[in-house]
């Protein structure tokens, strides 16, 4: 079982999906000869040619809009949005069109579309190359939103997304691209969209995270273990549909919940998780449902000093874990 980083796992997933089904094609800015600005699609243009790996014009709304049309004409498009910050011009096509087409046609039409996009910060990308966008889209019925954190999950979830008959927003934390490595099986496998994954079992508190923060939480949990606190770390993996069963079962066991994300706290995805816990595990709670999120400033600045001040860190997460454990 070869070891690879998250980016390579995604590339391999794309490659295998394209080899297996000629209906699959890739559409986005610089995905062709350039292989994408992060090199995720590197080599695919040479392998599958310009009719299946297509450089789009610089226009996100029609990247998604055209892929919706293509999906309705018997192909399986994978749209790449170069940075999640630039998905905003496609908001209308994603929310009002892709997400509502199956419902509005009473089940007649389907939109089997994957939208891949790198999100998140900590890479000195400044206000417009660091944003997290999951809260906007996880709110939208008809969409699925996936946020893998390991190479294994990334490849397995990508294949599930490509085969899913619904529009799937596939969010790749760009700092994990090369930072996170792991073993990926040779054989064809899937990770289903939906189930969360307990990445570290524990007894004292439950922590819910995804993307880069999942790794920071695992690091903090390690620290806490040395202090005698057993932390369960749950990788949400899919934000919509959310695996509330696994979440509630974990909280019912530990009695304490902490949710961590990098996106701005207020109105972020953590609010939903917290609300579900507060309503449905109320009787089991031995402490307040806590949240850590990015501060409520418009975005993550460029200057190192400011970027560092923005990002939740393993240390700040460990502090919150201690506080919750001690409650």
């Amino acid at each position: 079982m070869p070891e690879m980083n998250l980016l390579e796992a995604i590339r391999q997933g794309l490659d295998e999906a394209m080899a297996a089904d000629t209906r699959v094609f890739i559409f986005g800015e610089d995905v062709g000869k350039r292989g994408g600005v992060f090199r995720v699609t590197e080599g695919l243009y040479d392998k599958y040619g310009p009719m299946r790996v297509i450089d789009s014009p610089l226009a996100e709304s029609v990247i998604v809009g055209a892929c919706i049309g293509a999906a309705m004409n018997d192909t399986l498009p994978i749209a790449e949005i170069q940075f999640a910050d630039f998905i905003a011009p496609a908001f209308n096509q994603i929310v009002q069109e892709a997400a509502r087409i199956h419902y509005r046609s009473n089940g007649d039409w389907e939109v089997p579309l994957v939208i891949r996009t790198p999100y998140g910060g900590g890479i000195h990308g400044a206000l417009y190359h660091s944003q997290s966008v999951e809260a906007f889209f996880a709110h939208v019925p008809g969409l699925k939103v996936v946020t893998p954190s390991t190479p294994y999950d990334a490849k397995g979830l990508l294949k599930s997304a490509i085969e899913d008959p619904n529009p799937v927003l596939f969010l790749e934390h760009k700092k994990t691209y090369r930072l996170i490595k792991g073993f990926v099986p040779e054989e064809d496998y899937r990770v289903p969209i939906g189930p969360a994954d307990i990445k570290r079992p524990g007894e004292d508190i439950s922590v819910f995270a995804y993307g880069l923060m999942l790794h920071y939480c695992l690091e903090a949990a390690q620290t806490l273990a040395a202090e005698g606190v057993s932390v369960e770390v749950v990788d949400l993996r899919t934000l919509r549909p959310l695996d509330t069963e696994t979440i509630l079962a974990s909280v019912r066991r530990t009695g304490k919940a902490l949710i961590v994300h990098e996106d701005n706290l207020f109105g972020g995805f953590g609010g939903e998780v917290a609300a579900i816990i507060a309503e449905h595990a109320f009787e089991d709670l031995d402490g307040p449902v806590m949240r850590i999120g990015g501060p409520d400033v418009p975005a993550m600045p460029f200057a190192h000093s400011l970027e560092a001040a923005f990002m939740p860190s393993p240390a700040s997460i460990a502090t919150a874990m201690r506080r919750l454990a001690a409650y």
Partner: protein
Amino acid sequence: MTVSINEISASPGFGHDLPPHTLQDMLRYMMLARALDERMWVLNRAGKAPFVISCQGHEAAQVGAAFALSRGKDFVLPYYRGLATVLVMGMTPTEVMLGLFARATDPSSGGRQMPAHYGCRRLKIVTQSSPVGTQIAHAAGIGLAEKIKGGDAVAWVSFGEGTTSQGDFHEALNLAAVHRLPVIFQCENNEYAISVHQRQQMAVASVADRGPAYGIPGISVDGTDVLAVYEVTRRAVERARRGDGPTLIEARVVRMTAHSSDDNDRTYRPPHELTLVRHQDPIVRFVAQLREHGILSEAEEQAMRAEVAAIVDRATEEAERAPMPEPETLYDHVYAPARPRR
């Protein structure tokens, strides 16, 4: 590259060699659309149809175009005025009325959408939303997929002139032009976007002037002349099937009604214009043409009107009898179920 129909159509003879029964069929569809549309307003006034948005004045543009397409093969993405389009493509009058009454068996949406938001996968009528212009991008994408697959279906999409102000219009035309996609963009220019006149919408006289900005033909045609529209569309379809790329067609039409049943156009439209519009009725025009060329007798016309009226009566009755959606079905079809792996 903007050309007017007079220049391109050295018409080979009246009706572009279409046989008489086809010409009569065209008229029949126009009359059917009109009769259905008029009935909808009656039902609206009677409190039976909460919302109507009309095709009146656009019939020739739609029927002419649709007759140049291949039913069940080509994709159509008509906007909310596309009643005549969907009739030609195969939606039945009863199905249209089921949509008006928001019945469970409405083929477009099962009563979920406002009336006139057509869709039917079997007929390749692509489901439409209300935000204007989004469908133009879908048409480009259908064309892109067709090119990838190596097929020769075309995507035909319609929209109003106001909608050309949306970014999606621009992005879609540009994409289709770059990749020479088999798409026909039909702008039905009725000079108004609700209350906003074309003069406040754009600083050009014709939407067709925009074709050259994308390197594609922009053609302006009298959209009240069904045969003229048929001919320009036929050529555009040929061009698209040949792999030569998209065409932008502006069909100059008239909006014979208020924007919708929620509107009152006397607040912004001068009275003489409202009168004038009545004189540009595409159906009156086509009847006269057919009469002149001996293709439609007075008696045939009357028979056709009676036939159409009967169809509308029956459609209305059938649709009214159909059941409303059950409340529990609210939760159906949020997600499509997994497909068997191929």
